[in-house]
């Protein structure tokens, strides 16, 4: 309980100023622990300067800011032709140059290079080719991801996407996808009914629950880019079905099946044999399964000890143990991509906040604090951020946060959104 108090007090200051409006914290270029990067004006041929400024430079800056590991130097920049030393004195650790060109048929070409200003030697060089259907802003995403990859060893997530559920009419929800920066909204399903709980396999295959036939059914893609088809039940219908989640290797689907006595159980469907196996014991509510990255353990929510709490078990149902201790309502566990953390939501004073449980430490950390509710956490592929829904501006919208909870950004102003999932875009 002291944890709550400290957090609450700490964040009271922040909340008073920031939580009332859209909270987009602008990074200072000199903030510690971030690499400071400066960019000379990109040289472009076949593209007009306005397009380069808005669709490339501004996008790259935002991508790097949101990466949390690179800050883009904005002030006191030397002239474009200035020597490396001048850039170093201006505070830049890396100096980025980019040469863009658009050919007559619309294909894009980019050569990018980065220089370590202290050592005065190249640290990064890469050429990008994209055909004409790829927007210019995607080149900025690819470059940002590779720069982050060069720095941290793991590619960034600027080109990643968020898949989510959105209400399109009362009682009608469909699955949508949007770029990590809120651009490029695409509708993925058109069932004209309640369609919920999307899950995306590593190879991009989608699965979800739809009520299009009256009772819920699990639909999805059996093969990459294949048609959406019914995956479960193979025959008959009628029981409650929810929460499909692809296993990390993409061959199994964990899901939840309810019975007529009010129990709901974690099941695992083997796509190769179409055989489903029950992992929990028909003892109250068991739901919200989440695989660990090895695919040999599952986290889930169960009310077997009273209110909802987070439990872990092996993928055969053995070695069941409770993870969450404090709080009367802990749910929505999501295992982090490297397996060391579990994000979940906890109810405190009538609203919900995001928490991260560090398995190594055996301790939970509160991520969000505020007067509003934050729900449905999902990890970014690089594990540096969480995407979640919040009603802080009224209707349920999608936000991202870093793990400090101090850098909360609204993904888009789309209302009526739920169940976001974060996937790599390339």
């Amino acid at each position, binding site marked *: 309980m002291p944890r709550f108090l400290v957090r609450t007090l700490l964040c009271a200051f922040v909340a008073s100023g920031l939580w009332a409006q859209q909270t987009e914290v602008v990074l200072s270029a000199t903030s510690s622990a971030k690499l400071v990067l400066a960019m000379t004006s990109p040289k472009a041929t076949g593209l007009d300067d306005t397009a380069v400024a808005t669709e490339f430079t501004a996008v790259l800056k935002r991508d790097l800011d949101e990466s949390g590991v690179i800050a883009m130097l904005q002030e006191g920049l030397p002239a474009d032709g200035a020597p490396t030393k001048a850039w170093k004195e201006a505070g830049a650790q890396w100096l980025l140059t980019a040469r863009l060109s658009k050919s007559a048929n619309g294909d894009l070409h980019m050569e990018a290079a980065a220089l370590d200003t202290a050592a005065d030697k190249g640290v990064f060089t890469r050429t990008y080719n994209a055909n004409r259907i790829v927007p210019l802003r995607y080149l900025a995403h690819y470059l940002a991801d590779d720069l982050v990859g060069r720095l941290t060893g793991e590619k960034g997530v600027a080109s990643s996407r968020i898949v989510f559920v959105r209400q399109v009419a009362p009682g009608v929800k469909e699955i949508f996808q949007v770029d990590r920066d809120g651009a490029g909204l695409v509708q993925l399903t058109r069932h004209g009914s*309640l369609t919920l709980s999307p899950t995306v396999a590593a190879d991009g295959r989608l699965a979800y629950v739809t009520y299009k036939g009256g009772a819920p059914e699990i639909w999805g893609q059996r093969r990459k880019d294949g048609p959406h088809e019914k995956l479960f039940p193979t025959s008959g219908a009628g029981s409650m079905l929810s929460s499909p989640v692809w296993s990390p290797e993409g061959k199994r689907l964990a899901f939840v099946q*309810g019975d007529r006595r009010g129990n709901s159980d974690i099941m695992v469907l083997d796509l190769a044999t179409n055989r489903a196996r029950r992992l929990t014991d028909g003892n109250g509510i068991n739901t919200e399964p989440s695989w660990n990255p090895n695919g040999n353990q599952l986290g889930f929510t169960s009310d077997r000890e009273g209110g909802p709490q987070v439990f872990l078990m092996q993928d055969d149902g053995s070695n069941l143990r409770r993870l969450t201790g404090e709080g009367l309502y802990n749910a929505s566990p999501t295992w982090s991509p490297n397996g060391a953390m579990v994000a979940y939501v906890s109810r405190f004073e009538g609203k919900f906040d995001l928490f991260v449980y560090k398995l190594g430490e055996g301790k939970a950390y509160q991520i969000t604090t505020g007067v509003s509710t934050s729900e449905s956490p999902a990890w970014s592929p690089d594990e540096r951020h969480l995407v979640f829904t919040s009603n802080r501006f009224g209707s349920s919208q999608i936000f991202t946060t870093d793990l400090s909870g101090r850098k909360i950004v609204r993904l888009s102003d789309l209302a009526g959104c739920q169940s976001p999932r974060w996937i790599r875009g390339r």
Partner: protein
Amino acid sequence: MRYGIYIVPAAIVLTLGSLACKPPKTAEQIKAETQAAFNEGVQAFNDGKARTTNPYLNDKANPHKMQGWSDGWDKAQADKTAADKAAADKAAADVKAAADAKAAADRAAAEEAARKAAEAERAAAFKAATDKALVNIHFDYDKSEIKENDRATLQGIADFLKAYPAAKVEIAGNCDERGTNEYNLALGNKRAAAALVYLKTLGVDEARFTTISYGKEKPLCTEAKEACWSQNRRDEFKLK
């Protein structure tokens, strides 16, 4: 020439005699003539001639023709009379059949109308009973226990299902917006099951129910306050 006065008259006599004494008619000829006269009689009747116009009345040599003609006329008259009578009978029968059919149709229409009226009345009664019985029950936050004041409602649903043995009902469990989407789907399932179990204890066959959970996906009311939440934490009952 002296014998001529004998030969010429003799020749004349022989000639005339041979002419006058024709051989008697055979039975076939008489039969054929009778038939021919019969046909003429039929034709005469059909042509509208009177019986007295028999052309063989004075043919004393051929009484069979006179008889045949008269028989033909009589037969034609009898046939016509019979045909006329048959036609008249048929017309009368047709009129009667039409009248009978109309009466039957009227009767059927009346029966149908009565049946429809009765059906509409039954449907109205059924709808009234449905609307009266199938009302929502409500739950406490994160709970799926049947509340004391909803027991009468469930008893009403059980009575309704006993009164209408063909009726089937879907129980839809719903939740308020607080809590996760997935947990609320499971909780909605639990709430639907709670009503199902209770109705079973009231003696209704559980095969007459289907259950479904909408979790917090289909709220009746979308404001973030208890007055709204308490409406949303519900089981809905719907004819299936």
